[in-house]
């Protein structure tokens, strides 16, 4: 019996004979200077369905427009970031799967690039309109999660300082998506423990309470804020539901930290919601020391791509006005290209970047083990 089994297993392993590795990375490297026409010509010569993974739902709209424009057959897939990374890991060996990927969570991306799952491509046309720091890997847009509260009733949580949220009166009134379930939320918390943000939190504490912060057992002000903030949170299952719930007439006194673009949804009663930073900006104050966090959505070519030129063409397209259009119609999305105007009714990217916590992938990776271990204690 054992012999039989090992024969079968051997047969399975024989089938595993690896197909030739896709040379997408070489093609991308060699295409750095191609202009639009050259790229288009090569893309049109490629065969098969053009497959895109993205963890933004509007990627499918962008892809449809793109395919209509050039006559490609495309397939857009809206997946979670972790699912995309898992799928890519398995596709890179066997080929097939995604040609192009749009993804968040810069910390995981560091490894995805290092492991050769994804290849960065900077379209020649946009080199001057995207700042250097957003080029490698290429940021297609920024997305922000900000403090938004229900403006009904007499207990409106119009905060001006994030330390207000740690007050016992906020217990059960803050809604946030469990940071274990979405890494960008965890990334935000990790960033708060950095020197820069813990210093800012220390100052903000003094500004609010008029006295110096006492750390007790906490390593710095970032840890203290995380502990007390999470202690007051209840956890929602998705940013859409959080937005819907906080906008209800019965939700007076509630505040959330969720994706600003959810306000576009027809199921959210936007009139009942106020964005903390909008108020602050209109009345020229700021929410101390941050009004939320902002993170990049990257656009890259998959190493296993069977249509690498189409992938590059699509990335180039996403950096144009037409390519950004699916996101450009409503608040909460910010192109990394200076050539694309900010969305109507929204603040500009510079204002948001100045008032938000931003991601530093290397800091997140270096400190994940410590901070995540700390964070889960306050999710209990």
């Amino acid at each position, binding site marked *: 019996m054992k012999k039989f089994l090992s024969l079968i297993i051997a047969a399975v392993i024989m089938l595993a004979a690896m197909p030739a590795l896709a040379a997408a990375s070489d093609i991308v490297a060699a295409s750095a200077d191609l202009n639009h026409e050259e790229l288009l010509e090569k893309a049109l010569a490629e065969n098969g369905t053009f497959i895109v993974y993205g963890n933004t739902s509007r990627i499918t709209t962008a892809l449809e427009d793109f395919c209509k424009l050039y006559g490609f057959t495309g397939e857009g897939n809206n997946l979670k970031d972790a*699912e995309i990374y898992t799928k890519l890991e398995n596709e890179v060996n*066997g080929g097939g799967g995604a040609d192009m990927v749009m993804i968040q969570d810069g910390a995981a991306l560091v490894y995805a690039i290092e492991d050769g799952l994804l290849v960065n491509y900077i379209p020649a046309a946009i080199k001057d309109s995207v700042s250097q720091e957003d080029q490698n890997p290429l940021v297609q847009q920024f997305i922000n999660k900000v403090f938004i509260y229900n403006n009904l009733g007499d207990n409106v949580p119009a905060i001006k300082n994030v330390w207000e949220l740690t007050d016992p009166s906020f217990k059960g009134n803050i809604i946030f998506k469990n940071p274990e379930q979405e890494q960008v939320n965890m990334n935000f918390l990790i960033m708060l423990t950095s020197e820069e943000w813990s210093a800012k939190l220390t100052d903000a504490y003094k500004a609010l309470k008029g006295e110096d912060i006492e750390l007790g057992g906490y390593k710095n002000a970032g840890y203290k804020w995380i502990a007390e903030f999470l202690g007051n949170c209840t956890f929602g299952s998705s940013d859409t539901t959080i937005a819907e*719930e906080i906008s209800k007439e019965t939700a007076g006194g*509630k505040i959330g930290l969720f994706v600003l673009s959810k306000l576009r949804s027809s*199921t959210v009663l936007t009139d009942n919601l106020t964005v903390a930073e909008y108020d602050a900006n209109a009345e020229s104050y700021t929410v101390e020391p941050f009004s939320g966090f902002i993170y990049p959505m990257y656009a890259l070519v998959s190493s296993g791509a069977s249509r690498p030129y189409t992938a590059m063409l699509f990335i180039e397209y996403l950096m144009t006005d037409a390519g950004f259009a699916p996101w450009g119609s409503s608040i909460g999305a910010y192109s990394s290209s200076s050539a694309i105007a900010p969305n109507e009714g929204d603040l500009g990217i510079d204002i948001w970047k100045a008032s938000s916590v931003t991601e530093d992938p290397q800091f997140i990776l270096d400190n994940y083990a410590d901070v995540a*271990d700390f964070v889960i204690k306050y999710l209990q």
Partner: protein
Amino acid sequence: MELQLTNRVRMTRLSGKTRAWFTKPANIILLVFVILLGVLTLYPLLTLLMETVIVHSGREASAVRSLGLAKGDTTWWHFQKLLFTLNDGGAGGIRLSNSWIQFYSPFLNTMAVSLASSFIAILFGGAVAFLITRTNMLFKKFVSAVFVFPYIMPSWTLALFWQTFLKNTNIGTGTSNGIFASMFGIYAPEWLVYGFFPISLVLGLHYAPFAYILIGGILRNMDANLEEAATILKTPRSRIIRKITLPIVMPAILSTFLLTFASSMSAYAVPVFLGSPVRYYMLSTKMKSLMDTYSGQAYIIAGIMIVFGVAILLLNQKLTNSRRSFVTVSGKSSQISQINLRKANKPIAIILVAILLIVAVLPLITFAMESVIIKAGDYSLKNMTMDFWIGQNLTYLDQGDSNGILLSAKIWKALGYSVLLAVVCSLIAGTSGMLVGYGIAKRRGSKLSSAVNSLSFFPYLMPSLAFGAIYLSMSSHVPWLRGFALLAIVGSVKYLPFASRSGVNAMLQLSGEIEEAAIITGVPWFKRMTRIIFPIQKATFLSGYLLPMVSCMRELSLFVLLVPTSNTILTTMLMQYSEKGWAQFGNAINLLIVTVVLLLNYTVNKLTGASIDKGVGG
């Protein structure tokens, strides 16, 4: 010379024996399946074990860098971190240690929920099975038709219903009132809406049809002579039930326990929706979040779940294998007697119907309602629209699809794929299950038979999510194992236990004398199977086809990593919509799934006379 001769005699005898062994179809079946299942289940298991000691890329690699480890290295760190970090220097002591939070506490919750849901499933499903098969209760048809609804719905949709129905401003996020609170002004307490109780209840109700099908099948088919003999001897009814009926259904109760326990243990979506708001975590939810960060630890959790599943499986086998099997379908049989409920009939029937209306029909009505209103909670006419069903160009909604579900090409494509997948899985699993059942029953007691018996059950004990993850990594080495082929194989293997259980049950009930009679008259094996054995136990075998089909239609976690795209099958699409909070499309898709399953069931019923609600008994 003499020696040579004896050797030759021995050789001839041996090859004769081997030849004789191979002339029995049961042996060949068992041999084929032991090899197939060995590869399809043991290989994934080995892969899983390997994953628990390997450093994975990403956050995990960063976390162990200070220990001098890099991606691909082997280490015990995952075990150390997950299981033995009970004092990490924090002020909270053991209760705030990493291992307690990430493993022991969710582990205890998981055990509590799995036990409670198994108990609910057996009690509720068993009671209904008894009432339907052995009493003259009213409304039998309605009860048996509606009872399986909660199983047809993807489990988390029942959880979502529970939440939308009972939520209120005093509990959870405390942001809005559900239907119950706004209609009656009664605010349900937190324990009723979130945490241990509702999770157990929802899972219990979801899996109650297991009990109903397995226990009901035996109750319906048992040989009336046994009870009649007791009745003639003036044994009191209660004693008959205790001494005859219960022992006969015991194997079915244990099977139900095993199935429900293993399913509840790895259920992911229900605890996410009903547990997260009150910080109630189970192993499955922890496994999912660890899978994204520290996957080594996630695989350990998967491994421990398997260990528990196997322990129950062994216990189950020990209890059922000890010569306590009952041939209940013999060559001669007579109608079983039904208990007259008399005065209790109406109250029992009405209570049961009421319960079913709440847990099986009300959710469907709610889904229908929620699929036509624009802003949740507002049930006025001007807030209603059929757009989510038949609308066109709905860009204003910005909810993933620009057409109502009945006009959406995407939905029809996914529906077609889901149905095809369910049918193929059911054909493979059902046929294999029947053959396995035949082999196991015929060679009962042999090593080969018990090996196949265990192997065929094994896939069910692997948590779906981990099973899917492993097959995904397997597929990256096997070029043809992609897309539909991959989903079909995974689905068939995973749901084989349903089919093999019905197969074994059907064969064990069947007295050997029936096939022997055919053998004596020289009827070949294939003809015996198709003309005698299958027709007699048709209903039981067919339930072995139906259960995998229904389960595939509403399966999520098994397929979520394996589908080429999230729009490939209806459930992944539905989960995506549920998670994004696109409630209307989500509810509409859910209703579509339920309707399609009912239609499939109805068609099978019309064509063959079998159906899921008639279950094993037919």
